[in-house]
């Protein structure tokens, strides 16, 4: 997998993101205007959110005029025959915070707001759920002295390790709007989402696919399984603990959409230490990489050597390969296609 922005963790980059919670039948009313600076907790959008009701309404459309047509078909109700039927929905107002610090650069036709921001970006391997904003909150394992951690409702909860079904359920009950973790078994993830994960990530219409999921967004940095979160990712998340961030979980292999967490940098950091990076996904000597599949999935290391000739692997497959120096100092020869550059 090559990350959309090149690497999985990008400490500083200028991004533009549409603030939009998903859904077709939603209309946004912007509360800001292009050129305006916004803060992460500032409401930027009021939603006319639609909820389904039973009533069916017909919308008239042009009639087809056919020469010499004899109507041979009898419909029980002609209005249904000629009309485009749409479900009428009730509206309930709701405001959305920006989630980002930056400048409004555009308003879209559906009323969403495009914000440009100097941010850190974390790209996930897989996730689910619409875009949400919340306060990054590190989860702490309960211990005898402190007891159970109080998780503020509306938080983006960072769980620095593999997840399971019970943890997701608990987070949902606590009112958490999003969870960022390293990994989860496919069975537990599907159990929580109550959907077929293969169908979900193979969907063409991503917004429609997210509409039926639980109202808690999930981003998995490493993917499926029981892989730990790399230190580099953990450090970034710890550094911005308490900040408001924008999380999207939508994943579509067909549309090339992957989950991401965007954390606007504090104004002071931008003023004093703004060094945006231009991520280069090309595998070069010394590049930090992650093994994305196989027996060593999740291992982090740097490229120590790029073989000129194809190497043979235990499966018998011959492939172009690299030798990695892993974090524990060991060496690993692995096909180039199994490594992804992370920084």
């Amino acid at each position, binding site marked *: 997998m090559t990350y959309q922005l090149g690497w999985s963790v990008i400490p500083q980059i200028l991004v533009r993101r549409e603030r939009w919670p998903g859904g077709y039948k939603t209309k946004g009313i912007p509360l800001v205007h292009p050129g305006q600076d916004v803060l992460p907790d500032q409401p930027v959008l009021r939603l006319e959110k639609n909820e389904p009701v039973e009533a069916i309404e017909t919308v008239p459309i042009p009639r087809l005029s056919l020469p010499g047509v004899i109507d041979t078909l009898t419909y029980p109700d002609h209005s249904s025959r000629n009309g485009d039927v749409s479900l009428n929905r009730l509206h309930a107002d709701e405001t959305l915070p920006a989630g980002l610090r930056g400048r409004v650069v555009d308003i879209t036709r559906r009323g969403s707001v495009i914000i440009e921001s100097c941010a850190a970006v974390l790209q996930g391997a897989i996730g689910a759920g619409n875009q949400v904003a919340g306060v990054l909150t590190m989860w702490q394992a309960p211990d005898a002295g402190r007891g159970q951690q109080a998780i503020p409702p509306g938080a983006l909860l960072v769980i620095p390790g593999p997840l399971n079904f019970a943890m997701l359920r608990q987070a949902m009950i606590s009112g958490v709007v999003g969870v960022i973790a390293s990994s989860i078994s496919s069975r537990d993830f599907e159990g929580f989402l109550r959907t077929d994960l293969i169908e979900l990530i193979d969907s063409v219409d991503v917004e429609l696919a997210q509409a039926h999921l639980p109202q808690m967004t999930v981003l998995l940095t490493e993917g499926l399984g029981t892989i730990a979160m790399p230190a580099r990712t953990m450090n970034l998340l710890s550094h911005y603990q308490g900040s408001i961030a924008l999380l999207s979980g939508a994943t579509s292999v067909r549309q090339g959409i992957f989950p991401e967490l965007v954390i606007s940098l504090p104004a002071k950091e931008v003023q004093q230490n703004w060094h945006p990076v231009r991520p280069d996904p090309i595998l070069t000597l010394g590049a930090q990489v992650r093994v994305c599949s196989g027996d060593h999935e999740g291992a982090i290391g740097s490229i120590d050597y790029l073989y000129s000739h194809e190497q043979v692997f235990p499966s018998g497959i011959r492939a172009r390969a690299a030798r990695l120096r892993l974090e524990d100092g060991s060496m690993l020869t692995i*096909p180039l296609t199994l490594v992804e550059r992370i920084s």
Partner: protein
Amino acid sequence: MNTQPNTEGGQRQSPASSSNLNPSVANSLLVADCGTVFTKVSLLGLVEGQYRLMARGEAPTTIAPPHEDITRGIIQAINVIEFITGRHFVSEGRIISPEQPVGDGVDVFIATISAGGPIRLVVLGAVDAAMEGLVGQAASGLYAETHALPSPSFVVTSVPNLVSVGAGSTSVSRGAGGAWTPERVALEWERQIERIRELQPHAALIVGVADGPAGPAPLQEACQLLVSAAKELNEQHGAGVSAGVAPNDVASRQIAVLYAAAPEYVEAVRGMLQGVAEVTRVESLVSQTQIGPTSIAVGGLYDRDVMRHIPGYAHLHGWSSSAPVATATSLSSLVRFLAQHYAMNVMAVDIGGATTTLMLAGERGEFIPKVNTGMGVGPAVGAILQKVGIQRIARWLPFDISEEESRQYVLNRMLHPHVVPTNQRDLQISQAFAREALILTVEAVKQSNFEWLDADLILATGGVLSHAPKFGQVALMLLDALQPRGVTSLVLDRTMLISQLGAVATVAPVAAVQVNENDAVTHRLGTCVIPFGTMPRGELAIRVDLEYTNGRQLTVDVMGGSIEVIPLRTNEQALLSLFPAPTVDVGLGPGERARAAEEIDGGLVGLIIDARGRPLDLPGDEKERQARLLQWMQAIGA
């Protein structure tokens, strides 16, 4: 049933063409095939007066972010060739052309493309099972997905001869659901609009005549559905566009409409869809004789609405005097040529990341193309599991596999389609999926109205086959999935070139023929004898006599339920005589003996006698099945 026509004959001059050399006198050619997952580039050149494959390189396809430029993957693959040959082919992001005196550059550059996904086509109007079959045939050689959405009036009046609405959809069952109340009709409308929203089609095909019980109502409803769907799709498409942009300036998400229905209503349909969709009339599709025009029209839409929208396409086109060609179109040209050239039935199978292709051409001009879009061993592997279930995958594995492991494999492969299997277990799982991809494709062909041909020669290509570590593995995958009968030959395209040679032939036919014979089809796995009929396991199925060219003679008795490989290496020939048991057939009738009129050729595996029976029946008992698989793998060297 045509494949996409190469309407430009591969000769259209690009305004930014970098090569104006007469291709027929080219010294060197670079040929790129941009697949969904990998881009393969081959360098062809003259060696002692013959065109040969000189080097090849492979790199991930780069149409997705962060690259979003198909040419970057091509350049990366060319860089591999540059490393191998020490020559330079790219300068400042362009192909150096023509070939320079120092050896840098090439005279001709050709590209084939299967990346970018299929064209999604909704079929509207009076769509019954027969019509769906015709449309399926028209699109069978193209990168096209068809989804039938029969109009409600047609559904109402054609009970019980209904088709299910929408591929994979089950919400309208055949005759089920009771009376068509206004509420039910209204819900059906909503459901169809929802389905279109979900599919996000590139195009619609309106079909049906107006002389059925529903009259022209299905055509009218097709228009109504398109008007509603277009409104929704445009709202969806333009939703993220700046509000400061006038609606007229916002690129609209227009659905192209092909009208292959009752000709007397075409103007009325045009009128109704005015401003909503561009309507192109094609010959009414009512029988097999009219599928050609529909096929050509859909192929043209694929070219216009899919291929040309691939990021970097314009840049790529500028590299060459010939327009990029759909890979399936190129492969179909080659298969038909080979069938005529060798005067035999030739089958080519290509298992890709997102598509599995089967092309079968007969010596008398018969042609069966099947591009099974959305069925592959890369990003589309999930569709295989969804379609066949874990049991059909597991049946090919000589070990136990849990549903969770198989789903984990699939999800990982969907998310990381570039990965290659590094251990035996993953390799065998990937080959199990490859078998099912082929089986589904064969099933799709047989469900169509095509008349199946027994292939004399089977050509295999695509990463999972071409990169298989052992030739025996390839032979076994082909025998398991295709289940040929009688006598056939298996050839592996290790170079993954055959899919491109059809396109090469339109520009440099001599190069295509010579490279095909010199390099592309040189990995001959061997001749296969596949007896069929009643063959009790453990009893003599067939006696095989071989008389080698050096005079040595060998007789082998092959038992039912087994595979035997008789030594007959590459460049060896032998005269073959077959003595089947009375209930066993080798193509001439039960018990009929056969003696080859000419010597048969050997191959990298040898002479394969597959006496496992047809259809291949795997034991129900897990342990027995696994033991049998291991036995067969060992026998064939897999």
